[in-house]
C-alpha cells in the first residue's frame, strides 16, 4: 500500500510550495539580507523535512511504542531547558539555539504527547484482548493521563506559548473522547476545567490579556495588539474573489501586516490568491486530514488507530485555529499554519507526523 505515501506527499508538497511562494512574496520587498534569503531557508527546511518524512515512514510505528517514555523524557527535558535558559535571560523565549537552527521544543512536544497518549490509552491486559481503557476508573482514566499532559503544558504556557499549550489540551480531550473512557468522566473533566477559567484571567500575561480583549473589539488598541487583527482582516478581505495576484498584495508587502510570513501567512496568501485560493488551500488541508482519518479507520491495531487519529486531529486543530485567527474569528495566540508558515521546527514536526501516518498505513498492510 504505497498509495497513501504518494497522496500525502503530493498534497504536502503542494501546500509547501504555496507556502514558499507566499513567504517570498511577503518578504522580497523588505530590506536586509536576512529577509532576502528567508524563502531559500524555508526551501531548505522543506527538503530536510522530506528527508525526515521518508526516514520516519520506513520506521515501524510500533517502535514508538517502545520509545514513548524516552521521547516524553526528552521533550520534557528540552522544555525545562528552555524554561531555565529563559528565566536567566529574563525574556520570553520559546526556542533553543542549536548551531544555526532555532529549535522550538513546544512544537516537538505536540507530536510526543500524541504518541504518549495513544500508547497510554491502547494498553491491553496480558491475558486479555480487550483494551484496558474501557475499564479505567477516574484515576487511571482521567487524572493520571491529565497529570502527564499538564506537566509539559504548564512549561509551554509559561514560556509563554499559549497556542501550543491549548492545542495539546484540546488534543488530550479529543483523544480521551476517542478511547473507551466513560463519557461521564469527560464531562466531569470539562466542567472542572471550566470552573477556574475566570481566575485564570489574572494569571495571563498582559499582552495575552490585550489579545483576548482585542479579539472582542479590535479597535480598543488600533496601533498595538488590535493592529494585526485589523490589518489581517483587511488583507484577506481586499483579496476578493480572484485575489490581487502573486507579488501584488499591498497589505502584506508594505509594512502593514506583521508576522506576514509566519502566523499570518494565510492572510498574505488570501490577499494575493483571493477567495478561490483560500478555498483551494482549505480543500488541500481537508484532503490531507481526510487521508489521516481514512488511515485511522482502516487500521485495526488500537495503538496505530489512536495515533493516526491523534496526528490528523493535531493538523486539523492547528489549521482551524490558525485560519480562524487570521479571519479574526479566534484570538491571536501564535500558532503557525502547518506546512505554510516559515519556521523549521513546525515544518519538521509536521513532516515527522505525516511520516508516522504513512507508516501506520504501510505496516497495517503487513499485518
Amino acid at each position, binding site marked *: 500500500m504505497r498509495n497513501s505515501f504518494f497522496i500525502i506527499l503530493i498534497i504536502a508538497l503542494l501546500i509547501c510550495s504555496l507556502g514558499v511562494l507566499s513567504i517570498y512574496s511577503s518578504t522580497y520587498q523588505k530590506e536586509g539580507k536576512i529577509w532576502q534569503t528567508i524563502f531559500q531557508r524555508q526551501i531548505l527546511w522543506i527538503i530536510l523535512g522530506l528527508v525526515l518524512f521518508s526516514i520516519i515512514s520506513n520506521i515501524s510505528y510500533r517502535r514508538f511504542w517502545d520509545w514513548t517514555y524516552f521521547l516524553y523524557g526528552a521533550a520534557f527535558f528540552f522544555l525545562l531547558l528552555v524554561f531555565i535558559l529563559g528565566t536567566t535571560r529574563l525574556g520570553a523565549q520559546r526556542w533553543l539555539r542549536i548551531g544555526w537552527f532555532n529549535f522550538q521544543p513546544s512544537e516537538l512536544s505536540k507530536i510526543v504527547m500524541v504518541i504518549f497518549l495513544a500508547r497510554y490509552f491502547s494498553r491491553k491486559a496480558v491475558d486479555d484482548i480487550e483494551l484496558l481503557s474501557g475499564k479505567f476508573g477516574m484515576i487511571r482514566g482521567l487524572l493520571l493521563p491529565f497529570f502527564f499532559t499538564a506537566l509539559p503544558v504548564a512549561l509551554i504556557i509559561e514560556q509563554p506559548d499559549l497556542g501550543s499549550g491549548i492545542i495539546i489540551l484540546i488534543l488530550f480531550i479529543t483523544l480521551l473522547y476517542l478511547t473507551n473512557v466513560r463519557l461521564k468522566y469527560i464531562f466531569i473533566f470539562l466542567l472542572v476545567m471550566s470552573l477556574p477559567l475566570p481566575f485564570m484571567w489574572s494569571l495571563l500575561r498582559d499582552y495575552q490579556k490585550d489579545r483576548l480583549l482585542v479579539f472582542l473589539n479590535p479597535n480598543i488598541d488600533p*496601533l498595538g495588539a488590535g493592529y494585526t487583527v485589523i490589518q489581517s482582516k483587511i488583507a484577506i478581505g*481586499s483579496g476578493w474573489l480572484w485575489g490581487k495576484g502573486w507579488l501584488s498584495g499591498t497589505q502584506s508587502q508594505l509594512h*502593514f501586516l506583521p508576522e506576514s510570513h509566519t502566523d499570518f501567512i494565510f492572510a498574505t496568501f488570501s490577499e494575493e490568491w483571493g477567495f478561490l485560493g483560500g478555498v483551494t488551500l482549505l480543500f488541500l488541508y481537508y484532503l490531507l*486530514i481526510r487521508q489521516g482519518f481514512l488511515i485511522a479507520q482502516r487500521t485495526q491495531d488500537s495503538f496505530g488507530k489512536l495515533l493516526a*487519529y491523534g496526528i490528523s486531529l493535531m493538523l486539523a486543530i492547528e*489549521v482551524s485555529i490558525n485560519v480562524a485567527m487570521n479571519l479574526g474569528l479566534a484570538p491571536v495566540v501564535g500558532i503557525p499554519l502547518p506546512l505554510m508558515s516559515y519556521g523549521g521546527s513546525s515544518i519538521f514536526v509536521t513532516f515527522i507526523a505525516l511520516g508516522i501516518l504513512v507508516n501506520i498505513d504501510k505496516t497495517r498492510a503487513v499485518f
Partner: protein
Amino acid sequence: MIRPRIVIWAITVMLFFLLLGLLNLEVIHGKRYQELGDKNCIRLVSQNGSRGRILDREGRVIADSQLSYDLMILPQDPGQQEKIILSAAQILKVSVRELQKALKKEYISSSVPVTIARNISVKEAIALTELKVDLPAIIVQPDPLRHYPGGRLAAHVLGYVSEIDRWRLTRLEDYGYKTKDIVGFGGVEERYDYYLRQEEGGVSFEVDHRGKIIRTLGFKPPVNGKDIQLTLSIKIQKIAEDYLAGRKGSVVIMDPYTGEILAMASSAAFDPAAFAEKNSDALVKLFNDPNSLLINRAISSAYPAGSIFKVIVAAAALDNKKINPNTTFLCQGSTFVGRGEFKCWSTHGLQNLQAALTHSCNVFFYKTGLLAGAQSLHDYALKFGLSKTTSFELPYENPGFIPSPLWRKINKFKNWFDGDTANLSIGQGEVLVTPLQITRMIAVIANGGYLVTPYIVKAIDGRDISVYQQRSEKLNFKQGTLDYIREGLRGVVNDPTGTGNVLSGLTVIIAGKTGTAQAPPGQPHAWFCGFLPYKNPKFAICVFLEHGGPGYVACVTAKQIIQEMINQGLI
C-alpha cells in the same frame, strides 16, 4: 464505533465554518475591505507620551520634556504634497529640496503620515495649521522633546536619548521596543530606560477620498514615563562642575555611610540637548572631539592611582602586624630595592606611619610594602573594592586593575620582582583605578570599615527605593588600624608640612590623601581623596584631574569646591 465519526464530523463542520468565514470576509464584505485596503482609507496618527523626568534629591528638575511640534503630511495625494511642501518651505524658511529629501527618507507607506520637519516653533506650527483648511493632508503633531534646564549639568550621569540602534533593538525587542523608538544611551537614561520610557498611543480613523475624517475607528491614550529621582544635589553638582572648569577630570562626592552619590562630575562634558534636537553638526563635532566627551571619567575609565594607594599599603601592613604605629624608617631621598634605586620626592629623615602618610614619603612605603608582600597588598586592594566594579547602577563601569604575582605568572609568564612590589606600594606600575572606586575606598576609612555600594537613584515614580539601594559590607580590620590611618590622613591636611596643607584654612576639618600619578607622556594625573568633617564625616570626596599636574592642583580644586559648599551653607 460512534465516537470517531462524531470527531470527524466535528472537524469537517469546523473547516466548513472557516470556509463560510472566508466567504463572509472576502466575498460578502470584500468590497468594503477592498476600499479600506486599496484606497488606504485607514489613517494612523500616533501620539507620544512624554518621557519620565529626572529630578535631583530635592525634586529640582535636571531633565524633562518640552513640547515641540513636528510637521507631518499624509502622502496619499501627490498633488497636495507639492503644494504643502512649497508653502511649508516658505513658512519654515528652508529649501524645498530639503523637505523633499526628508519626505523620501521617512516615507513608510501611503497611509502612515511622514514627518518632514521636526522641532518647529509654536508660531510656525500655528501658521501651518491654518493651511489645513485648503490642504487637509497637513498634520502638525505635538511631540515631547527632551529638555535640559541645566544645559550640560550632570550630562554623564544622565546620558542622552536618541534613536535606538540595531544592537539594542535585538536585545530589547522582546520587551516591546521597536525601530525608531527613542531610547536612553549611557547613564540613568539607559539604565532606567524601562521606567522612563513613555508608551505610544494613537488614533486610527477612516477618511474619504479627500482625506476628511469620516469616523474614528479606535483610540489608545498615550502613557507618560515614570519620573526618577536621583540622590544627586544640583547645587553640589553645579559647584563641582564649575570648579572643574572644563579641565579633563572628575569630581565625585558621596555620603560615606549610605553610598548616596551627591555629585558626580565628569569633564569635558557634552551637551545632551544636541542628541534630542538631532543637531547633526554638533553631533559630528562631539564624536570627533579628541577629549572623548562621551566618557564618564568618574566610572568608565581607569587611571594609575599614585600615592593615594598608600592608604591601602598602610592598612595591609598594620593589619598584618608587619609594622606598628611606632615603626620608623629613614628616608634619605632614595632607597635600593635589589639593584634598582627607588626615589622619594624629597628627603624626609626618620618617619613613622603617621608622618609618612602626612608627607607621602615614598621610601617608607617602599619598605612597608616589601614587608607586607605583594600578594597581601593585592588582597587588601581588593578588600577596599578595587580591581572590580563597584556594582554602581550606571552602565559601562570600568573595573580597574591591581596586579599580583600570580596574575603575572599566569598571564605574562614573567616573574614578580621586589622592584614591582615597591612600584605597587606607591600605586604605580599596572595599578588602574576609577575615581568612584577611590571615593568608596576613602569612605571605608571615614565610616569605620564599611564598604558601601554607591548608588544614584533614590526613587522611581515617587516610590523611595533607597532601602533596596543601600548595601554595605563590613570589612574586618584589627582594632586601631583605621584610627591610625585616619590620624595620618588628618595630618596630610592639618599638619603644616602635610602635602594637602592648602586645604587647612577652611572652617571644617578635612582629612585626605593627595596623589601624583606619573603618566608619561605629559603631566602627571592629580588626585585628592578625602572626607569631611573629620569627626562624623558627611562627605567623601574625590577630585581627579587627568594630566592635571601634581596632587597640589587637585587639592586647590577640592578647596574651591568645599569653600563654595560652605559659602552656600551646604555643609
